[in-house]
């Protein structure tokens, strides 16, 4: 049994220690947001936060997480009570197919928690590891800038 802290709750999961965190989140904990994109750490669709740092859950064995607190998009808020990053993505309609978006949101959350005053250039640079194929980049950039504004007004979660 592996003990895992996810979105503020402690879970005990019965998984092979080498299993990448992504499959434990999705299949054992039923969390949909983190996505399988490449399994290679090339696209960022699987991005989650571990103690505030953005990591690729597709190449991180669950046994390597230890006591680090994992946060996924489900931990940012809900449809009825969205967190600032979620709210900003909805306001800017910053999705087409949306498959890459949870990874984008977690990388943005990690950036803004570290640097709430991140500039447009810093936001663009921070998102470099994450791929989007629909070409929604311009909206994603605007949404993250908007999330920074929302967080700056005390909406930080």
């Amino acid at each position, binding site marked *: 049994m592996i003990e895992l802290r996810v979105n503020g709750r402690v879970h005990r999961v019965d998984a092979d220690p080498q299993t990448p965190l992504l*499959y434990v989140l*999705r299949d054992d904990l039923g969390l*949909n947001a983190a996505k399988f994109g490449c399994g290679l750490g090339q696209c960022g669709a699987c991005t989650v936060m571990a103690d505030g740092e953005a990591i690729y859950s597709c190449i991180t064995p669950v046994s390597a997480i230890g006591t680090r607190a994992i946060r996924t998009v489900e931990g940012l808020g809900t449809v009825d009570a969205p967190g600032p990053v*979620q709210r900003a993505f909805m306001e800017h309609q910053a999705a087409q*197919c*949306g498959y890459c978006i949870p990874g984008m949101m977690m990388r943005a959350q990690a950036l803004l928690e570290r640097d709430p005053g991140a500039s447009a250039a810093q936001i663009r640079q921070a998102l470099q590891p994450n791929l989007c194929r629909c070409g929604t980049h311009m909206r994603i950039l605007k949404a993250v800038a908007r999330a920074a504004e929302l967080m700056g007004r005390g909406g930080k979660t």
Partner: protein
Amino acid sequence: MRQSRREFLATGGALVVSFTLAPLPALAQEGGHAAPTGPKLPGSLTRNPMLDAWIRIDANGAITVFTGKVELGQGVKTALQQVAAEELVVPFERITMVTADTERTPNEGITSGSNSMKDSGTAILNAAAQVRAILVDEAARRLGVPAAQLTARDGAVHASGRSITYGDLVAGGNLHVNAAAESKLLDPSRRVVMGRALARLDIPAKVTGGVAYVHDLRLDGMVHARTVRPAGPGARLRSLDAGAVERMPGVIKIVRDGNYVAVVAAREFQAIRAARALGDRTAWEPAALPQDASIHAHLLGLPARDSVILDRGSPDAGTFAATYRRPYQLHGAIGPSCAVAQMRDGKLTVWTHSQGVYPLRDALAEMVRMPREKVHCVHMEGSGCYGHNGADDVAADAALCALALPGRPVRVQWTREEEHAWEPFGPAMESRVRASLEASGRIGSWRYDVWSNTHSTRPGKAGNLLPAMLLATPFIPEPPRAIPQPEGGGDRNAIPLYVIPNARVVSHFIASSPLRTSALRSLGAYLNVFAIESSMDELAAAARADPVEFRLRHLEDQRAIAVVKAAAERFGWTSFERRRGHGRGFAFARYKNLAAYCAIAMEARVDPETGDVRIGRVAAAVDSGEAVNPDGIRNQIEGGIVQSISWTLFEAVTWEPQRITSRDWARYPIARFSHVPESVDVHVISHPGSPFLGTGEASQGPAAAAVANAVADAIGGRIRDIPLTPGRVHAAAGASAAA
């Protein structure tokens, strides 16, 4: 007491046949629907004429609208719901939309060709208007008041002081009637729901971890499968040592049939590990592929079927000649293809992100040798799309695995490498322009030849499903087909919209294809618009004319002129200051010459040392007819521009003689945030009351040419081969500086 739609279905017979069993015309895939018999009905009502196939109103007033088109993140579900709400005169929120499902919705073939609003939007607009008229007439009868004195509003029909709800007015199957050719449409100048940038219905689940994709579907007892694909295209399985893999943890079954290999396991990562182990224990007899480096010469050496698609006046040999090429390119959805299938009680159910659930159902039924009534395909969203990707193939994988494990739902997701190597590619193409100018500075003669493989190998037949091709008794792919004009396939947009007195355009269709190809967003329009619009800039330079003014000289269509002027103005075309390494580019096309008009201006900065290209500001103008959701249109145009910039600067499928080598994002790079534009401004021109014109593929061709034109303007050298890699840009800049 009215019979529910589900009860109609349960009764079977003619009522159902009218919309569920209509055969799909073979060439309905990328548009070009076969002509129906009988009176011409609006949009997809032609193929599905019963009003209650589209709109159901329950006694409690609940309104359900059915579409055979699928949501791909393009926002069509939201736009169609806006259309229905407008003509039914009910609040947007009152409507529930049901999208493509072979047991519930009309058969609208494939969601492709930017045809959804034209087909389904037009059908729903008219069906809703006709349903409203039926309800008003029924209210008139019951109230004894002339229909002209009644108003439909908020789900009820109102007379002075009295009203009857829609739910009460639906009775005796009065919506189970054939649509009429004419509808009493509302005044388009008084739109309430259409024309508004309403928030998309699919976004909340996508940003909160809801069940938003087929990838997120988890059924009780569900198991996981992964496939083991051949070493390369055409390779045959020589040997397979399954013994050790069968004993791996969680492994339930190895499915093998000829060259088809898959493994099913209890848990997802167990399936992944088992498939890797199995892959290491297979040996394949490879087949040879033609040389990557000389693929265009190889293609042009194959037999071609030539069609003259434009023959006007007497074109001459031309004083300007140029050849343009595109490589094979990927759809490359971020999430590899996925499906879930379950065989239960003699019936196969498949949850799929296919663009065409009915054609897929027919292909799966043929593959598993079951009657198609026993195969049920339900659409759920997938990642990306952008054309015929692995969605249908993975549905076949799931079906084959589910058949091997009756009762168990089986989820299959492809690996990244599998998606990159095995999805059908956008075809490599070549085209040649020969043109000459008149003394007046107008183009007097234009000759254009384009060579292409097929742009449509979608299912409908089992032979078009990759897994079915690999079986011991393989299904053979259908003979490749050219999609006819006016929509065209390889020759889509090969006819310029410009007015040229002498012009000849020839489409050379190459049936034999060394690699599997199919529809990639905008099909041949991507290369044809790239070629035509690059040539327009070169001819403008020869005529010493401004590129925008030169285009306007050759346009007569007022809507084309309007988007060209709007894009140029919003960009600040005339005030742009050129500097070395910093250029501007312009391009225009009307998609398929019959859908949306789109003009794009953009600036590019080029580092001559490295050949690195960065796109600055982009301004676009689009006319999609009546804009139902302007923000949806903006999002599609923006996305198309950014995607096309990626195709045009970075992308090419690569291979060795026996295998595809561009198998991940390192070996098939696409644009990251560093290389998307600084800004994209999209101006939407709407014409309320005029037909919906498809938008989703309008910007890719113009964006590609605008990139090439901006790069040429920045470096003084022209690149005619896609992609405009740093090496090619550096070489062109060097050649230009040396000249």
